[in-house]
Structures are given as structure tokens and as C-alpha cells.
């Protein structure tokens, strides 16, 4: 875990004091709402449907037990006893009072957290692979570089007033779990032919009303050039990005309008003007940061895991959870525990304060004090001994945290939608709940195989519907909610944007429409073929025919 140095601690403390003063001046009327709005947004405080909402940054999704307990305390003391983990690996509180916010920011600062740059036209929280530092397929932990980007981009004067918000995602593994191709900048660590490690730099991906897959502007960038090259990209964007129309202001539009080749040429020309020696990543600084992400002292475990094997044999429920929710760790004898925040009929991403404390306790005792938040709105214990997995499961199971649907149909991503969000045009959560209940049988979900159903309550696509294998977009049609279905999206290394299947559906029709699509898939799939592969092989036609057949 990264630990704040003296500068970080002082900076966050000062920022909290500044906000306290700003909030007091707003409450006393010294500041108007127009003056105050940008100040509160820079500190993650939005005005939503029912109250203020505070979005807290969780850099690259990594939390300590102490931090998770503090999030639980905040939920109980200043909110309504729960929090919502988001697709940006952050947490949001939905019932915040302006008069309490400075105290909450202080409570966050006490555990080296803040809400800075979780809003506004700046570089937002850097997101990462939620299995970083643990995954068996990883080349290297990307989080030290994530932290480097966080430090570089925090209150960077040149990049605090960009044309629009800006999102980085990074991964150190070939299998992309961080959705890097649908971010403004995506970074993927890989080895070149000479066996050296460097970064593929992708620019101009994104979702929202104009979804696009990022283009690669550099296939292999040495690590020590990373920040300088990022600056070149940001400068080109800052200079040429549109400011006349907020819907055309994201970097994806610039890349699209200039064309990938012209954009790349502009970046390379800007990069060539850089005095490289001034912006090269200092190895000593990166090493200083990297030591906070040092590999934990794993026990040399034996190959045999008798407790784990016996528990699987004796307990079918645990066996199913182990099959679906555990992932390969890079150290023998260890596993990655994926805690689904998607119980049957539940609200995706919500966790009660009590559940947060349970997960914090488990992390402290079984996972080197670390937790991760995934962009799919789940929590991860990254380093658990296989022999402890049954004990972990028992505790999770006692607190409604052991749903065995990780990566399956029930593991639905959903934005808060019209139940909470001021921008939403339709509700998303009730759709997720209805689907979850209709397909509550996890054995049936396993039969469907890996499946991503993503639901957004408006065109801004916080629920990542464009990259869902099945995407659902809620819209307002003459005052009524209706839902458009897309198929074939993916946020992985073979990223794609889903295609609209046909006319939309009323809310109550959506679960049956999903069943129709899945029945069609089961009928047409080859042996062992996953949903996305079947869709890519056959295209939308058979699904469309089955769904819109009028017999």
C-alpha cells in the first residue's frame, strides 16, 4: 500500500481546511452557488436526486483494512449505513449533508484518503486491474505507475481545466481486466521482442453518448518516458480539444476528428519538443513508490491443500463458490478471493457498514491487510491462502457476501440510475434486480458461462452498457422508462462496442428478453463456446429474429 509522505499528508489536510472554509462561506451566503459549485465538485461533492452525494477516490481500487473500516464509519455516522462501490473503483455516499462534508473529508484524510479530482474537467482517479499484484498472468504490478500518475496529475496546474474530464486505466497483464481500451488513455504493460518491458499507450477510448475503442499511439514506450509522453498527449488535447461543445470535448472526439495518424503525429511532434531530461521518470522516485507495493511475504505453501479439498468435497455450496469466485494467484498455495456484491435481488455495488467491516476483518487476517474494489462493483481479497478459503467463505456466507456468481449472469454492473442520479433518464437497479431474481439459480448461470450484463440509466453509460456482452440502456420515452438492448460489447483485450438489437422494451419485458437471447445462444452455441464468441461468430441476426419474431 502507498503511504502518504509528509507532503501528501500536509496537502490533504490543507485542502480539507480550505473546503471547511469554503462550505462555511457558502452556508453564510458569502459565496453564491455559482461560485461554490466548482469548489465542491473539485472535492467530489455533487448535488443528486435526494441529497448531496460524496464520491471518494480509491486510487487504482486499493484499500487497507483501516481505510475500509473508516469508510464504514463514515457510512454510519454521516450517511445511512451503506455505501455504493462504483464502476470507477470509487465509493459514493448518497445522503450527505453539506454541513457535515468537511468533517467527512477530515475523516478521510485521517486514513490517507480524499475526494479530490473525483469530479470536474481534470484527470480523474486512475483505475487499474483489481487483481494487480496478485494475478497469475501479470507481468508486473501496474500500481506503482498508477501512483506515479496520481501524484503527477493531482492538482497539475496545466491539466486542471481540460476541455472535459479525463480517465486513465492501467494494466500489467495481457488479459485486460481494467477496460483500458475504453478509457481516455489506456496503458498496458507488455514485453517487446527483445524481452524488455514497456507500455502500450492507447488513446481516445470511451463510452458515453459516443462510444469508441482507443487507438494505439505507441506500441512500446519505455517506462522512464511515460510521464513525458503523457504530458505530450495532454498538451495536444488541451490545445486542440473542443471547448465549444461539451458533447464533443472528450479526447476520443479529437482523435476521431483528426484521425489516428494525425493525432499520433501531433503527439510525437509535441513529445519531440519536450526536454526529456526534465520529465523522465526518476528511477529513484519510482523505486521509492514501488517499495510501497512490495510483494507481501508469502508463506512457502505446500502443494497439497487438504483443508481446501476436503471442504470442496463436503460442501457443495462452497465448492461452487470456489469454482466461480476464486482466481489463480501468482504464488502457489494462494488464491484471489472475489467477493460478489451482487446477491440475488440485491443492489449491485452496495455494501452495508457491517459488510465493509467484515471484509476489512477478513483482509486483515487473511489477505495481508489489502482489499481491492473492482470496476465491476465487487470487492477483492487479493492474497488469501487456499487453506484459509473455507474459513473466509464461512464468514462471508454469514453476512450475505458469498454469492457464487462472480463473472456469471448475476454479476451485473448497474449504475445508480434514476433511483439516485440527477442525470439518469431511467432506473437501472430494478432491472438488475429483476434479472437477478429471474436467473437466481447459479447452476443455470454456470450453464450460460461467463457473461457480462451491464446496465446504464442514461446515455452517459456509467453502467458500461456499451461493453456488456448484453448491454441495457434505460431511456425516457415520453415520460415512460424503456430499455434498449445491445449485444456483443466487450471491455477486455478484444474490446468491442455492442450493437443495438432493435426496438426497446418496457421495464417488465426486459428479463424475458434476456431469457430469449440466452435461449437462442444455448441453442446455437458450439460445445464450450462462450456467449460472446457465439455472438461474434453468428452476428445479431439469429438473436434479432428470435427476439422480435411475431408468431
Amino acid at each position, binding site marked *: 500500500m502507498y503511504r502518504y509522505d509528509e507532503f501528501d499528508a500536509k496537502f490533504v489536510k490543507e485542502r480539507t481546511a480550505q473546503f471547511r472554509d469554503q462550505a462555511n462561506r457558502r452556508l453564510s451566503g458569502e459565496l453564491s452557488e455559482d461560485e461554490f459549485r466548482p469548489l465542491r465538485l473539485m472535492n467530489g461533492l455533487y448535488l443528486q*436526486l*435526494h*441529497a448531496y452525494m460524496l464520491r471518494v477516490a480509491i486510487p487504482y481500487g486499493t484499500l487497507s483494512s483501516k481505510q475500509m473500516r473508516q469508510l464504514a464509519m463514515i457510512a454510519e455516522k454521516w450517511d445511512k449505513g451503506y455505501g455504493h462501490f462504483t464502476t470507477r473503483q470509487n465509493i459514493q455516499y448518497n*445522503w450527505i449533508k453539506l454541513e457535515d462534508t468537511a468533517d467527512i473529508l477530515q475523516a478521510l484524510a485521517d486514513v490517507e484518503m480524499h475526494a479530490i479530482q473525483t469530479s470536474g474537467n481534470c484527470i480523474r482517479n486512475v483505475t487499474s486491474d483489481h487483481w494487480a499484484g496478485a494475478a497469475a498472468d501479470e507481468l508486473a504490478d501496474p500500481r506503482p505507475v498508477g501512483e506515479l500518475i496520481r501524484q503527477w496529475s493531482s492538482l497539475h496546474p496545466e491539466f486542471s481545466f481540460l476541455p472535459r474530464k479525463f480517465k486513465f486505466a492501467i494494466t500489467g497483464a495481457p488479459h485486460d481486466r481494467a477496460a483500458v481500451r475504453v478509457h481516455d488513455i489506456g496503458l498496458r504493460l507488455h514485453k517487446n521482442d527483445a524481452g524488455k518491458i514497456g507500455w502500450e499507450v492507447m488513446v481516445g477510448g470511451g463510452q458515453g453518448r459516443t462510444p469508441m475503442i482507443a487507438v494505439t499511439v505507441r506500441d512500446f514506450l519505455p517506462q522512464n518516458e511515460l510521464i513525458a509522453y503523457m504530458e505530450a498527449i495532454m498538451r495536444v488535447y488541451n490545445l486542440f480539444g473542443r471547448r465549444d461543445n461539451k458533447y464533443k470535448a472528450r479526447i476520443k472526439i479529437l482523435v476521431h476528428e483528426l484521425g489516428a495518424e494525425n493525432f499520433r503525429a501531433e503527439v510525437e511532434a509535441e513529445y519531440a519538443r519536450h526536454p526529456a531530461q526534465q520529465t523522465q521518470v526518476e528511477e529513484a522516485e519510482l523505486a521509492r513508490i514501488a517499495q510501497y507495493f512490495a510483494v507481501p511475504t508469502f508463506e512457502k505453501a505446500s502443494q497439497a491443500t487438504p483443508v481446501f479439498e476436503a471442504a470442496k468435497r463436503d460442501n457443495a455450496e462452497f465448492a461452487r463458490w470456489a469454482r466461480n469466485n476464486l482466481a489463480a494467484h501468482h504464488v502457489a498455495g494462494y488464491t484471489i478471493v472475489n467477493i460478489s456484491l451482487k446477491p440475488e435481488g440485491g*443492489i449491485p455495488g452496495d455494501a452495508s457498514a457491517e459488510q465493509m467491516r467484515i471484509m476489512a476483518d477478513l483482509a486483515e487476517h487473511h489477505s495481508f491487510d489489502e482489499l481491492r474494489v473492482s470496476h465491476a462493483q465487487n470487492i477483492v481479497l487479493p492474497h488469501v491462502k487456499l487453506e484459509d478459503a473455507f474459513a473466509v467463505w464461512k464468514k462471508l456466507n454469514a453476512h450475505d457476501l458469498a454469492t457464487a456468481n462472480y463473472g456469471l449472469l448475476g454479476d451485473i454492473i448497474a449504475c445508480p440510475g434514476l*433511483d439516485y442520479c440527477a442525470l439518469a433518464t431511467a432506473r437501472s*437497479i430494478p432491472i438488475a434486480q429483476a434479472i437477478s431474481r429471474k436467473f437466481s439459480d447459479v447452476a443455470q448461470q454456470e450453464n450460460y458461462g461467463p457473461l457480462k450484463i451491464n446496465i446504464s440509466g442514461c446515455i452517459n453509460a456509467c453502467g458500461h452498457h456499451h461493453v456488456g456482452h448484453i448491454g441495457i440502456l434505460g431511456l425516457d420515452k415520453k415520460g415512460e422508462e424503456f430499455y434498449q438492448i445491445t449485444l456483443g460489447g466487450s471491455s477486455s483485450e478484444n474490446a468491442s462496442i455492442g450493437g443495438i438489437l432493435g426496438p426497446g422494451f418496457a421495464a417488465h419485458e426486459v428479463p424475458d428478453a434476456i431469457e430469449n437471447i440466452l435461449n437462442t445462444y444455448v441453442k446455437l452455441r458450439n460445445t464450450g463456446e462462450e456467449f460472446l464468441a457465439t455472438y461474434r461468430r453468428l452476428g445479431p441476426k439469429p438473436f434479432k429474429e428470435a427476439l422480435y419474431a411475431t408468431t
Partner: protein
Amino acid sequence: MSSEAKGQVMTANRLKDGDVVFLTRSGGWSEKIDEATLALEPLAVAALEARASEAVLANLVTGHYLFEATRVDGKIRADHIRERIRTLGPSVRLDLGKQADGTAGAFRPVEG
């Protein structure tokens, strides 16, 4: 015979805590939509706008706007689902918001 009237309600968020409030006949702000003034004609709408602007200047509320509503038998129902959710609370957490605080309107739960 039930009586029905269509008009507009002025809403905002209370500045200090963000709670959803509605402008009342007496010029105050209430958490309950049933206590709101339903403006039935342009002059009444203009009066609501003027009073809301005063409340903004007095730092009582923020983010004010008008929405369409219908009064049925003395109870006010927001016409659009978005505003109905604001008058009640999240449709997925009936234990939260006005529907749980006893400040919800008479129309519940959110349909659809």
C-alpha cells in the same frame, strides 16, 4: 366525485443538507409535496419563481426548478417518474428517504 387540477410545483434542495423541498403557499419550504403550492396559471408560476429566487439569495435552497404535477382530491402527484422518486425516495430502498421518514406524498410506491 374526485377533483383534479394540473399545474406546476416549485422544488429545490435545501442548502445545508440537500434535502428535497417544495415551496408552500405561505412562502416556506416543506419536505412534503402535499404541502406544496400547485400553480395553476402563469401569474402563480411567476410568483413561485420570484419566491424561489428570493430563497436562493437568502441561502435557504439551491437548484430550484418547476415540475408538472396533478392535484387529486387535495393530494399532489408529480407527473414524471423522476419527480415522483424525489418526493418518495429510492424505489429500491423503501426504508430510505421521504417514504421512510413520513414526509412522502400520498402517492406511493413508484410504479412502472
